[in-house]
């Protein structure tokens, strides 16, 4: 019987069908659920904020003609060669291993077309992404898989990764089904193992050590490269302050909505805090230290549209980073592949089994036949189009708020639609001057 046709059937809010399915799956298999993507639960997000366009007291700019700049410079604090981006949207770190070589190439092509950076991931740098990425950020991860000083020198910036928003405190995971010969060789690991990346760095602990580690990386690269410090959002106020003290050029805060190639579901849904409060706390830390805009701030985790970009910048970010959205732009979860998704027991819009390596779109796989479905040139064009749309949308909003540069957007341009968002973002509830939890002047 279809439950919707019988009002007498009432589903439990506590034990709904998803919960029942998970309990029974756990009972059958005896192991926690592992999947890709990020948190699926509803969380306070940028949708709970609105931008206040110009009116009597504000002067808007003409929507398509008057200049509204979008460039941003990252790494101005200590690096001899900062990164100049044409748009304030970057591509987040995603590993070769989690992604196919074609996907990495497509990300590089798309980012380069619009003048922004892409980022390596666990497992090191591939020729495909270096070759097709004009600006490439090299992740320096706890596992140090594939870590090579020559690649460090080839990079345009270095991102020291402490964690990611999908699983702050947890290490990476790549299941045996995706450990191809090439992936295994790059990571110096046996074929077919369920690979765990270390959750903490092997040669430093704590912010005082981090300062020395940053100094070492600067010495090895002759102080040329901007050094980012990325962490998953858990205690972003303190983490930001400590990263600044340790000497970071750029802070990257990844909120709970951030994606991953594989993680325990319990981690994805229950560890960390959403992007909205994480961003606000990171900005507060920078402002209190007098380092806002001097140490640049990148925020990631659930960025989907130009509106999200504009809101993040208005809250104080210098740039945003996208991962899941970039994969969707390449074709992940496309309805065009519905028949293929059905074959593996999924459906377009629901596929998050990145850990299995059976991605019909050829993105999160190491299977050569599946990978061949993704044309890296076409994928790059699709990503470039998407990035252009995000930029145009953010510009449109910025102009409507009277800004000649997207970075001129300000918290004063925001209002909150929910009490939760107002409290987390410290933005007044729309139609009021009330900021829940604010004890003094904003």
């Amino acid at each position, binding site marked *: 019987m279809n439950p919707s046709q019988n009002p007498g059937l009432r589903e439990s809010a506590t034990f709904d069908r998803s919960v029942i399915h998970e309990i029974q799956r756990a009972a059958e298999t005896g192991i926690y659920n592992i999947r890709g993507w990020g948190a699926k639960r509803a969380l306070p997000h940028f949708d709970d904020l609105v931008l206040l366009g110009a009116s009597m007291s504000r002067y808007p700019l003409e929507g398509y003609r008057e200049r509204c700049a979008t460039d941003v410079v990252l790494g101005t604090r200590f690096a001899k060669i900062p990164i100049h981006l044409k748009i304030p949207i970057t591509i987040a770190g995603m590993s070769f291993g989690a992604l196919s070589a074609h996907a990495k190439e497509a990300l590089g092509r798309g980012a380069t077309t619009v003048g922004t950076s892409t980022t390596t991931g666990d497992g090191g740098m591939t020729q495909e992404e270096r070759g097709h990425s004009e600006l490439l950020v090299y992740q320096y991860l706890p596992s140090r898989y594939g870590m090579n000083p020559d690649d460090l020198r080839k990079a345009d910036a270095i991102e020291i990764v402490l964690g990611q928003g999908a699983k702050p405190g947890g290490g990476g995971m790549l*299941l045996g089904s995706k450990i191809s010969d090439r992936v295994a060789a790059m990571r*110096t690991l046996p074929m077919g193992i369920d690979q765990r990346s270390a959750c903490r760095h092997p040669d430093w602990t704590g912010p005082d050590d981090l300062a020395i580690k940053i100094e070492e990386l600067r010495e090895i690269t002759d102080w040329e490269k901007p050094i980012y410090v990325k962490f998953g959002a858990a205690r972003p106020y303190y983490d930001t302050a400590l990263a600044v003290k340790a000497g970071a050029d750029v802070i990257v805060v990844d909120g709970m909505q951030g994606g991953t190639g594989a993680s325990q579901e319990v981690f994805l849904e229950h560890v960390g805090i959403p992007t909205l409060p994480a961003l606000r706390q990171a900005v507060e830390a920078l402002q209190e230290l007098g380092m806002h805009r001097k140490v640049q701030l990148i925020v990631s985790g659930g960025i989907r549209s130009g509106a999200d970009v504009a809101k993040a910048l208005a809250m104080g970010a210098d740039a945003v980073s996208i991962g899941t959205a970039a994969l969707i732009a390449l074709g992940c979860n496309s309805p065009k592949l519905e028949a293929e998704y059905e074959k593996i027991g999924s459906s377009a819009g629901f596929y998050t089994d990145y850990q299995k390596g059976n991605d019909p779109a050829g993105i999160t796989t190491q299977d050569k036949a599946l990978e061949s479905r993704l044309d890296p040139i076409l994928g790059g064009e699709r990503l470039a189009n998407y990035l252009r749309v995000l930029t145009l949308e953010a510009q449109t909003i910025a102009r409507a708020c009277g800004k000649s540069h997207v970075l001129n957007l300000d918290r004063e341009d925001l209002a909150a639609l929910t009490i939760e968002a107002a409290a987390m973002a410290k933005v007044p509830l729309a139609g009021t001057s009330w900021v829940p939890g604010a004890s003094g002047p904003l």
Partner: protein
Amino acid sequence: MKTATEERVVDLSTGSVRELNHALHQLRHTDGAAHWHVREPRGAHSVACGLTVPVHVEVDGPTGYYCAGMNQVATVILHGNTGTGVAENMMSGFVHVKGNASQSAGATGQGGLLVIDGNAGARCGISMKGIDIVVKGSVGHMSAFMAQAGNLVVCGDAGEALGDSIYEARIFVRGKVADLGSDCIEKEMRDEHRSLLADLLARANVDYSPGEFRRYGSARKLYNFKTEHSGHY
């Protein structure tokens, strides 16, 4: 910096590590086997890190963190104790500590030979990926944690949780092992291992016989996630 006819002498009481490293990074392979002498390091961090040519560097005195880090082909001799992460992520070459080394010695190293005449602290050889490490003294706890490849030779004793979560690296210990970490077991010492160990001991200029050592490595039981492993994680 003073320049000698046959070797360059750098005094870090008057010069900076940044100047030293920058000068070393300007060397080219065609410059030949240049000989550098660093004096008065006074515990400075990142001394002689990121070298890419077959230069010979000797450092007189104690050094801080990450000395000879990410070394490639160079020879670095440290006459003194050294701090955290000596020769971390070394790719090739030779680093010789003629004193004691702090924690994470040779961490994530991918190649080359690290010899420590004294003791090494905790996490010696952590996440090693192909480096050979010979410690003439003892090593601290969690040594060879998540070690992936390469050889760790300990002529003295090993601390707690040796080889925890080890992959395919080999550990040879002459003395006592406090205890073994998850998935690390004692393994049979076959001729191939005795031969390998003899070569490592010879390269490190150690007189012990391979027969005095025991071998440890991965049981390979935790390579794939299984429900019965929950007690081991």
